C-alpha cells in the first residue's frame, strides 16, 4: 500500500489529562488516515517536567499516572515519561528527536539531521513522527525571539505538525503569515473540529477547586485518582504562582511557550 507509518507526539502539561486531549489523537488519526498516505501506528502523550514552572502544575508523577489511567483502554496511545524525568525543561524539538531516535532504533547522525526522510534497508517506508498540537501553538512561532529559527525549521521541515483546530481559520492564517510555515505547508496538517468543545484542563481544575462535578469530561479512573490524592485544590493552583516559566527564565536562550490547553 505504501502508507507511511506515523506516530503522533503530544507535548503538554496534561494537568490533568482530559477527554478533550484524547479527542485530539482520535481526530488526528482519522484525518491522517483519510489522506491515504499515512498509517497511524501510535500516539505518545509526553507530560512536561515539573521544572517547566507553570502555575498550578502538580507533580509529574501524578500527571503521568493520571494519563496512564486515562489511556489504559486506548489501544494505540501511550504515555511516555522521559520528558518528565529530565532534570530541566526540554525543548520540544529535543523531545521529538529523542522519540524519533527510539522509533528508528538508530543513533542520529549528521546525515540524518540533514535528510528529512532517512532511508532504511528494506522496502517498507520509514516511520515518521509528527507533533500533535492545537491552533494556538502555531501562533507562538510569530512572537519575536520566542523560537530559534532553526528549531522552527526542524520542527516543521523534518518532523511536521498535525494541528487540530476549530472551524475558524486561525491555523490557516498562521501558516499564511509565516514564510517558514508556508514553505513547509505540505508538512503541516490542519485538522478541523467543527464543533466547539472548550472543556479544557483549566476549566476542569477550576471546577474541581469549587467542588463541582467533572464527570464525563475525563475518565472516571482519573477523577478517582484526583480524589484519592487530593490534587487540584486552591492550594495546588497557587503552585509556581510567582515563578517564571522555565523557558522564559533560561539565560540567553530563546524561550518557547508550551503547546497545551
Amino acid at each position, binding site marked *: 500500500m505504501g502508507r507511511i507509518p506515523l506516530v503522533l507526539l503530544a507535548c503538554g502539561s496534561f494537568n490533568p489529562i482530559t477527554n478533550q486531549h484524547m479527542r485530539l489523537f482520535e481526530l488526528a488519526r482519522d484525518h491522517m488516515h483519510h489522506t491515504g498516505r499515512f498509517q497511524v501506528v501510535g500516539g505518545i502523550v509526553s507530560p512536561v517536567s515539573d521544572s517547566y514552572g507553570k502555575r498550578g502544575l502538580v507533580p509529574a508523577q501524578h500527571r503521568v499516572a493520571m494519563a496512564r489511567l486515562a489511556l489504559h483502554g486506548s489501544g494505540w496511545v501511550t504515555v511516555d515519561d522521559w520528558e518528565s524525568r529530565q532534570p530541566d525543561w526540554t525543548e520540544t524539538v529535543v523531545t521529538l528527536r529523542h522519540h524519533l531516535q527510539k522509533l528508528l532504533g538508530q543513533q542520529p547522525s549528521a546525515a540524518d539531521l540533514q535528510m528529512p526522510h532517512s532511508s532504511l534497508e528494506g522496502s517498507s517506508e520509514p516511520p515518521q513522527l509528527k507533533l500533535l498540537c492545537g491552533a494556538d501553538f502555531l501562533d507562538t512561532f510569530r512572537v519575536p525571539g520566542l523560537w530559534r529559527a532553526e528549531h522552527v525549521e526542524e520542527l516543521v521541515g523534518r518532523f511536521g505538525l498535525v494541528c487540530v483546530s476549530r472551524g475558524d481559520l486561525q491555523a490557516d492564517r498562521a501558516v499564511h503569515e509565516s514564510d517558514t510555515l508556508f514553505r513547509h505547508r505540505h508538512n503541516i496538517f490542519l485538522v478541523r473540529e467543527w*464543533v*466547539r*468543545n472548550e472543556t479544557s484542563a483549566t476549566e476542569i481544575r477550576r471546577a474541581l477547586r469549587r467542588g463541582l462535578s467533572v*464527570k*464525563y469530561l475525563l475518565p472516571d479512573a482519573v*477523577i478517582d485518582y484526583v480524589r484519592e490524592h487530593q490534587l487540584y485544590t486552591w492550594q495546588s493552583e497557587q503552585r509556581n504562582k510567582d515563578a517564571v516559566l522555565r523557558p522564559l527564565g533560561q539565560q540567553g536562550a530563546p524561550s518557547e511557550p508550551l503547546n497545551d490547553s
Partner: protein
Amino acid sequence: MELGSKLRTRVLKLRSFRRHMAIAVHTSFETVRLNFTRAVLASMSRNHPIPSGRTMSRKRPVGSAKRTRTARSFEQPKKTKVVLLACGSFNPITNMHLRMFELARDHLEDTGQYEVVQGILSPVGDGYEKKGLIEASHRGEMAKLAAESSSWIGVDTWESRQANWLETVKVLRHHRQELLSREPDTDVVGTAKAGRKRKRMDASSATKRRKLEEGPPQRSDEPRLMLLCGADMLDSFGVPGLWKPEDIEEIVSSYGLVCITRGGSDPEAFIQGSDLLWPHRHNIHVVREWVANDVSATHIRRALRRGHSVRYLLPDPVLGYIQERGLYTTE
C-alpha cells in the same frame, strides 16, 4: 464506581449526617462535595454542629450544645428533594447529556435549597418518528450502559414503551405518580434503579385516574420532580402551535424546569418576555454552562456515518454497543 447492591442497601439505611459520611466514603468523587467537608468538620468540632454555609452567621451560645454529636443534632435547613427528568431522543446518548445532569445538580445544590436525589433519562418512543431515530430498545440499552457508572442517574423506559408519542407533560405526570407510590421513608438515593423493580403494579387504573384528577397529594417529604432540558426546549415554548399553553403552565407551575444554556441563547430574556413563564420564573432554573460544548448526538451520528472516531464523546460501553451492532452507519 458502582456500589455493590449489598453495600448500597447498608448505605441507604443510614440517616442524614451519617448517611452523608457513608456516601462520602463509598461513592465516587462527584458526590463528595460540601456535605463531606461539613461532615468532616462536624466530626472535629466538640460543641458546635457545623451548620451549612447559609446559616454560618447564626450565633450559638457556646454552652448550649449538650447534645451529643448524633445525626439528629446535625442541623441543616430543610432542603427540597429534587428528581430530575430528562426527556429526549438520546439517539445516541452522549457525554453531553450526562453532563447536563451533573451541571443541574451542582447548580441546584449550590443554592442550598435543594438536594438532588435522583436523575431519570427517559428516551422517547419510536412513535416520535424523527428521521434517523433508531429503535427505542437500542436507545434505552445505550442509555443504561452510559448511566451505569453513575450513582444517581438511571434510565426509565416507560415512555419509550408507549405505542404513541406522549406529550412531555404526560411523562411528567406518570413519573410523579411513580414517585408518590414509593415508600415514603425510603431514601431515594440509589433506589432509582432498584425501585423500579418494586414498582407497584397493583394500583387500579381508576385509582390512578382519580389521583390525577385530584392532583397528587402533597407529602412533606415528596421529592419535587423537575424537567431537565436545554435552552432550545425553552425556546421551543415560543413556537406557535408546538405546545399547548396549559401544558406549559402545568410544567412550570406544578413541576419546574432546569434549563442548561448553550452559548447563543438567552433564557432569562425569553422568560422575561413571556407572560406565561414570568410568573413562574422562580421555578425555572437557568444553568449557565460557561464552557462551550456543542458536541451533539447529531454530530456523533454524522461522524459515525463517515467512519470517524467518536471516542471520548460518549461513554466507552455505549461506543462498544454501537460498533458491535453497526448502528448509525447509514442515513
